[in-house]
Each structure stands twice: as structure tokens, then as C-alpha cells.
């Protein structure tokens, strides 16, 4: 005769509730959220939804809150999804009656790291707009004020753009151009004059004005040639786009300084 287990029921039961052992041979209703009896529930999970809660009978459209492990990543997963045509629903965390949407709807509620360094700046972590991370050092003891907007930004309170540290250059002894974020500009160049009284055009005009140009000889080895005299340079008529360069060399025959062309010069100009 096959074994016939003898199980007794303790108390009344409610359809749809799980059964829980009361003691050996006795079961009773597993309880409700407000009057639980079941003390442990163990599941062995290798799927995304090993424990699922649906908001409707599974005969039509429904949403499901699932608990399990994501097979794709192996990570533990709490998931929400709509099935059979159900519209998607969101996920909220309710703590002591306060509802927190997840992910945050941009209302200022964000999730940060477990710890941070006091005074460091916070950066968004990823593109969700809801996660923060420690951004590193920015430990300002006092106020960090922006008094002058970034050059060219058109915004009087915008901080510096790295692109405002503009630079153009063309190698050794070539053109060098540097602009700081406040619009101060330095450019240098090496060229050859024509007559000794020349208009020298800057490779790139200053936006407003050029305040100073310093020019000098760029071929000093020629001092030791046939006419071993250095060249005297002078600058005048400075504008935002050019300047007048005068180059005079002592001539033994004429016994005086005369304007001379085909001389190699270099200059540094400062403006804004």
C-alpha cells in the first residue's frame, strides 16, 4: 500500500494564499502582508524574473515587478516591464510615505556614491541625469566668483573656456600666436624686409589694437661678413593689422646708416 501522508490543517485558509508548515504534519495559511506567518522564502534564481508580482491576472495585458538575476550580465536585478501590450509603468521608491521616482525626473533628486571627499566637486555619472560621482579636487575655501566672462563667449559670467587659450604656430622660428582668455594676444614672426622702410602685415590682425612691437635682427652671423655692422631697427605706425619697420645698416662707403632691404628680422607684438 502506497504511503499516504497525513497532513492536518491549522485554522482557516484563504484561497490564493500559500501554505506554510506549522509543525510536523500540520499546515496553515501563509498569512498576509499585515499578518504574515511565512518566515522565509527561498528561490534559486537563474532568470531575470524568478519572483514576479503582476498588477493583473496573466490572461491579458499586465505589468510585472521582477526579482532575479540578469542572465546577460549575471547581476542581481529588480526589473519592471509591461507584457502583452501593457503600457510601461515607472518605478518609485517610497520611504516613510515619501515617493522618490527612479530614475529621477530632473527634480534635483540624484543618487551619489557611498562616500565622497569633502570639498570635491560632484559630476554626473553617465547620461541618466540621476547619478553623481566624485569629480576630484575643487576645494575652494572661499567663494569662487566669475567676474569676467570667457573671452568671446558673450556671457559675462561664464568661466574660462580652454579653447580661449588659442594658439596657432608654424614651427621653429615660424609664426606663433597666443591668445589668453581675456583677449590679450601675443604673436611673433620672422621675415625678410624689402626696402628698409616697409609696412609689415601681421599674419593675423589683432581684433582691437596692437600696443607694442619689438623688432630685432634675425641674422646676426652676417655681422661678421663684408660689412661687419649690426642693423638698427625701429618700429612706428603700429596699427591692429600692421606696423612700419625701419632697418638701417651702417655703410662704410656712405659713412652713415642707410635704409637697407633683404634683411632678416624677427618681432614680437602684443595687443588685444
Amino acid at each position, binding site marked *: 500500500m502506497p504511503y499516504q501522508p497525513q497532513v492536518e490543517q491549522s485554522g482557516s485558509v484563504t484561497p490564493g494564499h500559500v501554505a506554510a508548515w506549522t509543525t510536523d504534519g500540520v499546515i496553515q495559511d501563509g498569512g498576509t502582508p499585515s499578518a504574515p506567518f511565512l518566515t522565509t522564502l527561498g528561490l534559486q534564481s537563474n532568470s531575470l524574473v524568478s519572483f514576479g508580482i503582476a498588477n493583473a491576472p496573466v490572461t491579458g495585458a499586465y505589468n510585472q515587478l521582477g526579482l532575479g538575476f540578469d542572465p546577460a550580465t549575471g547581476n542581481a536585478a529588480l526589473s519592471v516591464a509591461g507584457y502583452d501590450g501593457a503600457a510601461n509603468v515607472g518605478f518609485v521608491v517610497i520611504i516613510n510615505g515619501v515617493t522618490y521616482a527612479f530614475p529621477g525626473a530632473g527634480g534635483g533628486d540624484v543618487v551619489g556614491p557611498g562616500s565622497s571627499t569633502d570639498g570635491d566637486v560632484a559630476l554626473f555619472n553617465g547620461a541618466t541625469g540621476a547619478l553623481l560621482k566624485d569629480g576630484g579636487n575643487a576645494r575652494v575655501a572661499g567663494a569662487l566668483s566669475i567676474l569676467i566672462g570667457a573671452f568671446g563667449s558673450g556671457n559675462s559670467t561664464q568661466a574660462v573656456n580652454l579653447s580661449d587659450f588659442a594658439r596657432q604656430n608654424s614651427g621653429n622660428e*615660424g609664426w606663433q600666436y597666443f591668445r589668453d582668455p581675456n583677449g590679450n594676444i601675443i604673436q611673433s614672426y620672422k621675415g625678410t624686409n624689402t626696402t628698409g622702410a616697409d609696412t609689415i602685415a601681421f599674419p593675423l590682425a589683432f581684433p582691437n589694437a596692437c600696443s607694442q612691437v619689438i623688432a630685432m635682427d634675425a641674422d646676426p652671423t652676417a655681422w661678421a661678413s663684408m660689412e661687419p655692422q649690426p642693423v638698427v631697427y625701429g618700429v612706428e605706425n603700429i596699427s591692429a593689422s600692421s606696423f612700419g619697420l625701419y632697418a638701417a645698416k651702417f*655703410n662704410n662707403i656712405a659713412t652713415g646708416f642707410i635704409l637697407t632691404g633683404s634683411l632678416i628680422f624677427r618681432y614680437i607684438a602684443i595687443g588685444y
Partner: protein
Amino acid sequence: MVKYARFDHTKPEPQPVIGWYDTDFHNYPNLPPAADLLALTDAQWDARMSDPSAWLHKGGALLPRPPPAPAVAPAKVTIPKSPVG
């Protein structure tokens, strides 16, 4: 936005180029009048770096300035003797 060479249109042609403007790179609050500006191609803009002071404008074209004529040696000067004091 355009790159320009500047010249003085009141001078007879060919006029020397006396400025170079990149309006992509800079916002020029006082750009010269349009009559003094020649819009450039990128190739022309890059070519200016051979010598920014060696270009001419003529009839709406940008031309390299011809090389200068060979220098002429200055005339010999007879230096008078210093007066005997």
C-alpha cells in the same frame, strides 16, 4: 564667415596687403570697410604665411609681390679731412 586680406582702396593698384582677418577665429568689433577687404579662399589664406607682407591686391585678385630689384650700391662719398685745429 570669411577670411579677408586688407588693402587701401584709395591707393592706386596694385595696393599692398596691410592686414589679414580671420572672422571665424576672431570677432572683430571694427572690421575695415568692405571696400578695403578681399575675401580669400582657404588656399589663399594659407599661402599668406610665406610672407604676410609680400602680397598685393589688383582688380579683385590677390597677387604675390614681385621680388625687389637688386640693391644699388650707394655712391662713394669723399670724406673731407678733418680741419687741423
